[in-house]
């Protein structure tokens, strides 16, 4: 049976077919669909963990219990999970453990671009790089075997075009794999220095075995063609190379890309006249191959940043002219993503902009608060950074006698992911920062996954919702306010009060994401054109339901408007109301 699957879906399918019973992840584009597609299988336990470090620890625990496990995250998630990962390389596993790292070259949905192939040699764990959906599925089975036989976590590294690119995949039946028996082995699992040193040596022995294995691993394969040019490549780059060079060259397609098959590489290179290494991002293969003393062409011609493409290869290697843009004598306005109509983050950013305070932002839909006209966010670094940065900003000022605060703004999912530790730090170190939690009752950016505050698990079970206000109070914070995000006056009062308060403050702005299903419908608003003075204050909210016409008049698109009333609250001329009635408060 052939199914048309994305790489993420294929990995999920592979986990199902090859007997996984356990999956843990924190969502992040482009990795989210791996675990999302495992949730429906009744044979597999799946959870959204609070963050990637926890997901990997949960996965390692399940592996020791004897289960075959998939843990998935985006590239930056691996930074968060690095601590358990680098030591899991020493402990090894019991049931097969695959960590999927989905990298995002060109940063379609990410704050940075990193080549996580570098993680494999750094952590000393084997790495598999599929080139399409079929391989993604098959390599899950291969990966579980390598993991169990070599006693190691396996890194499966994919990129956006593999994760979200779809292709036909031959699918099979599920094999049931019973839990392997757990045996207490402190010398293997307790990495105190005395036990860690022998395990460090065990890692080297394993690497030597993996090197041998890599030489004859059938997915590391040579495709002989004319021998004037040889191309060494892996992952999605293989497809671009095949697209451009077809049958006119020879290929060494690498799939187990750490440790590399040195003999195979030498053999291939010795038989072709000229070797190109075609890879996206870092000169990962190139550096290692050059270290073998083999002369190759790589990053001298191929860029080391952003996505690779067939076009780039045509231009840089074949010297072909890039296709000319159809010159148009009309300007094409950009269409950037925007906060949705009715987004509860909007009124909070509107208020913060008005208050002109430094805003240490975070990662989530609210990253869009940096765009005009809201332009309320000063910084975006990584998940959870808002709180630590707001604390540092306030402290650095206080240290030299300046009373200058910053507001840290983060989402509810981010609060549980990595906001809580920052908040504890602020309390412990006598900070006086202001933390605003945009509690939209979901992880919106990545497609509405539940989190510890929502009281529902990935599998749809009801659990105990953790209240953010309770967490803050239990840390000893006395200045905690909960307000309705749609109530502009309440939001402003709460933040003003917090800025004046001499100690740490938390303001929770609560209102469900407007895209969540099953919310009560509110009637759309309309603008009374007789009362409207065309002052355009409403446009400063940046709501996409407001339409600015060439004659400077503004109307509301009734299909887009969710009736949140934020525009009505900012209107000084009382011109915005419900169709045929006044505004709902």
């Amino acid at each position, binding site marked *: 049976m052939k199914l048309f699957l994305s790489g993420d879906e294929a990995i999920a399918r592979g986990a199902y077919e090859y007997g996984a019973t356990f999956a843990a992840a924190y969502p992040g584009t482009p990795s989210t669909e791996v675990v999302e597609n495992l949730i429906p299988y009744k044979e597999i336990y799946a959870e959204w963990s609070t963050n990637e470090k926890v997901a990997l620890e949960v996965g390692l625990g399940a592996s020791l219990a004897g289960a075959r496990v998939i843990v998935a995250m985006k590239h930056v998630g691996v930074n968060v999970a690095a601590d358990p990962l680098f030591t899991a390389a020493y402990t090894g596993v019991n049931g097969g453990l695959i960590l999927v790292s989905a990298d995002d070259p060109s940063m379609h949905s990410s704050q940075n671009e990193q080549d996580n192939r570098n993680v494999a040699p750094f952590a000393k764990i084997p790495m598999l790089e599929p080139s399409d959906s079929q391989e993604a599925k098959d390599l899950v089975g291969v990966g579980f075997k390598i993991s169990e036989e070599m006693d190691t976590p396996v890194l499966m590294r994919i990129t956006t*075009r593999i994760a979200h690119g779809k292709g036909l995949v031959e699918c099979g039946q599920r094999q049931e794999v019973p839990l392997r028996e757990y045996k207490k082995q402190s010398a293997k699992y307790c990495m105190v220095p005395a036990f860690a040193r022998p395990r460090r040596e065990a890692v080297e022995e394993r690497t030597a075995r993996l090197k041998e294995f890599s030489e004859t691993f059938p997915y590391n394969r040579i495709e002989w063609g004319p021998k004037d040019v040889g191309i060494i490549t892996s992952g999605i780059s293989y497809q671009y190379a095949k697209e451009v060079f077809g049958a006119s060259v020879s290929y060494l397609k690498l799939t187990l890309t750490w440790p590399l098959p040195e003999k195979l590489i030498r053999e291939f290179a010795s038989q072709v006249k000229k070797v190109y290494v075609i890879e996206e991002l870092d000169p990962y293969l190139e550096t290692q191959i050059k270290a073998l003393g083999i002369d190759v062409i790589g990053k001298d011609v191929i860029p080391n940043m952003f996505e690779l493409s067939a076009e780039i290869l045509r231009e840089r290697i074949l010297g072909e002219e890039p296709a000319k843009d159809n010159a148009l004598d009309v300007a094409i306005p950009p269409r950037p993503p925007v906060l949705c109509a009715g987004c509860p983050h909007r009124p909070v950013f509107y208020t913060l902009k008005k208050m002109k305070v430094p805003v240490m932002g975070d990662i989530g839909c609210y990253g869009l608060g940096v765009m005009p006209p809201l332009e309320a966010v000063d910084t975006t670094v990584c998940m959870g950074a808002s709180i630590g940065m707001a604390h540092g900003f306030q402290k650095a000022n206080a240290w030299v006698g300046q009373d200058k605060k910053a507001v840290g703004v983060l989402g509810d999912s981010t609060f549980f992911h990595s906001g809580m530790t920052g908040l504890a730090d602020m309390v412990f170190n006598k900070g006086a920062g202001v933390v605003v939690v945009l509690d939209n009752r979901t992880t919106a950016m990545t497609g509405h996954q539940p989190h510890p505050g929502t009281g529902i698990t990935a599998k749809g079970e009801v659990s105990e919702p953790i209240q953010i206000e309770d967490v803050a109070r239990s840390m000893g914070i006395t200045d905690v306010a909960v307000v309705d995000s749609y109530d502009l006056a309440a939001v402003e009062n709460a933040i003003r009060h917090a800025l004046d308060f001499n100690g740490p403050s938390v303001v929770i702005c609560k209102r469900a994401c407007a895209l969540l299903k099953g919310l009560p419908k509110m009637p759309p608003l309309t603008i009374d054109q007789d009362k409207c003075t065309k002052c355009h204050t409403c446009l400063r909210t940046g709501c996409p339901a407001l339409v600015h016409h060439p004659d400077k008049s503004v109307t509301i698109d009734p299909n887009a408007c969710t009736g949140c009333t934020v525009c009505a609250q900012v209107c000084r001329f009382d011109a915005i109301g419900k169709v045929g009635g006044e505004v709902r408060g």
Partner: protein
Amino acid sequence: MANKVTNVLLVGVGGQGTILAARILSGVLQEAGYDVKMSEVHGMSQRGGSVVTFVRYGEKVYSPLVEKGTADLILSFEKLEALRWLPYLKPEGTMVVNDLALLPAPVLLGKAEYPYNALDVLREKAKKLITLDAAKIAEEKVGNIRTQNVVLLGALANNMDIPTETWEKVVRESVPPKTVDVNLKAFAAGRQYQ
């Protein structure tokens, strides 16, 4: 025989439902026995941004991405997006455009102008241009505004060499059972536009 690969772009605005259309299209190509690859980017772009789905099919497809100037067919769900993706069209390619203007944020804010003459510009540049007002057709001829995507697929299908039965089979399998008839009607309505 040379490995001929056909390149199709589906473009529009996040939230317009290009995804269902892409699913039906790829289902049809699979059913017709082709190797198919499709690539789209999820995430940020869903929040009302410009979206594109690349679909490639033939005997054997390698890259999932369509290169500039090589698209045989572009189906655009919106006029400005048709202009934006025009550089991907082959000189002899065909463009099917939904006669709909969705104003992007800079236009809504009065910071940029919408190119209302988009269809005139396209007519000059694209060898073959088919335009239709899918919302109007869905509402007036089909009687269900939510079938716009399938109307557009009908217009796309005219430019592809795939039997009608294959399209109808996949449409039937891809939409909720209760809406099969209305979607088949929408597909037929779209086919009127060539």
